[in-house]
């Protein structure tokens, strides 16, 4: 391992949508695995005019390992929609490798690293990062580590704002910005699809 590689440190300049994602990034940093957070949004549904109706941005891309990782630490009943999106993604982009990390996988990871006490606050609804004002409004704690979700990409159905049951009350407000980002990234995803 080169000096340059061994001196790579954790990244502090990234904002995450969920505390479990921040913890996952810390684990990757610890083991010196390079990662990108939501680097690309894949369109997965179009209307007859070719407009993107639905898109999906996997949480992480690990370039050295050429794999996308999607964390799903919410309640199991809310995971169904994400499973459908991942299935659709695999159908449309068969060359793409994606690993879905469920709540149980994340929990097992935390147990393995002796952090089982943090599982509840890093996953599920409590792990969703909200600005302090919204957290106060809904009586929920703000996310740890000073995280904000301004950089988060919404993977909800952009044609139906706020329709995603995973969003919760605080997430509706960013859906418009997320839609703009999804549109911008759609072109990049198309290039990726063409390349693969």
């Amino acid at each position, binding site marked *: *391992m080169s000096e340059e*590689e061994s001196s790579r440190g*954790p990244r502090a300049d990234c904002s995450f949508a969920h505390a479990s994602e921040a913890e996952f990034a*810390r*684990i990757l940093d*610890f*083991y*010196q695995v390079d990662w990108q957070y939501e680097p690309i949004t894949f369109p997965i549904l179009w209307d007859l005019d070719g407009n993107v109706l639905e898109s999906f941005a996997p949480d992480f891309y690990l370039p050295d390992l050429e794999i996308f990782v999607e964390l799903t630490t919410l309640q199991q009943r809310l995971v169904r929609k994400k499973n459908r999106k991942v299935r659709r993604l695999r159908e449309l982009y068969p060359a793409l490798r994606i690993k879905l990390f469920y709540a149980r*996988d994340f929990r*097992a990871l935390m147990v393995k690293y002796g952090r089982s006490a943090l599982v509840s606050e890093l996953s599920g609804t409590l792990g969703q990062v909200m600005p302090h004002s919204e957290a106060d409004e809904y009586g929920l704690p703000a996310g740890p580590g000073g995280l904000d979700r301004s950089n988060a990409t919404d993977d909800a159905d952009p044609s139906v704002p706020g329709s995603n049951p995973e969003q919760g009350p605080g997430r509706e407000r960013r859906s418009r910005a997320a839609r703009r980002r999804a549109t911008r990234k759609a072109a990049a995803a198309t290039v990726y699809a063409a390349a693969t």
Partner: protein
Amino acid sequence: MKHSQDLLLDVAETLLTEEQIAAKVAELGKQISDDYAGRELTLVSVLKGSLPFMADLMRRITLPLRIDLMEVSSYGGTATESSGLVRILKDLSAPIDGRDVLIVEDIIDTGLTLNYLIRYLKGKNPRSITVCALLDKPARRLVEIPLDYVGFEIPDAFVVGYGLDFGEVYRNLRFVGVLRPEAYES
């Protein structure tokens, strides 16, 4: 963590008996002996979990070989607080350049530690690096690394014994068992 004084009480079920492990280790030892005949083999054990496996496996290999030990800090350990980066806590005691290295691991789940270790060891210019793992838990795999020798593929459960621990306990069990959730749930 709340473990019983009688560790057996914390084990929900035996996954691999002492006899099953011994038979598999003998099988792996023979296979490795055949594959590395006439070559310069160094077994590198990763502390602490793989110690029992290493001790048994090396005695089932019939070739002249060297052994070495490494220890790598784990996420969530004390090293996390100080540097935030994985560290080599104990490095090799002898050079491996030009030698065939066989990494001996107790279990591979995410593959993160092994991925780091292989990258590190490649920097020491060995002739080859292969991996022998007693247990493979593919359901948890994040980093796909080819495993050259695998004892058992196991289901997605928290296992202890035969070197595998939870909170430094249970390593001394002579078998591999599934830990009761009450033992690791806070």
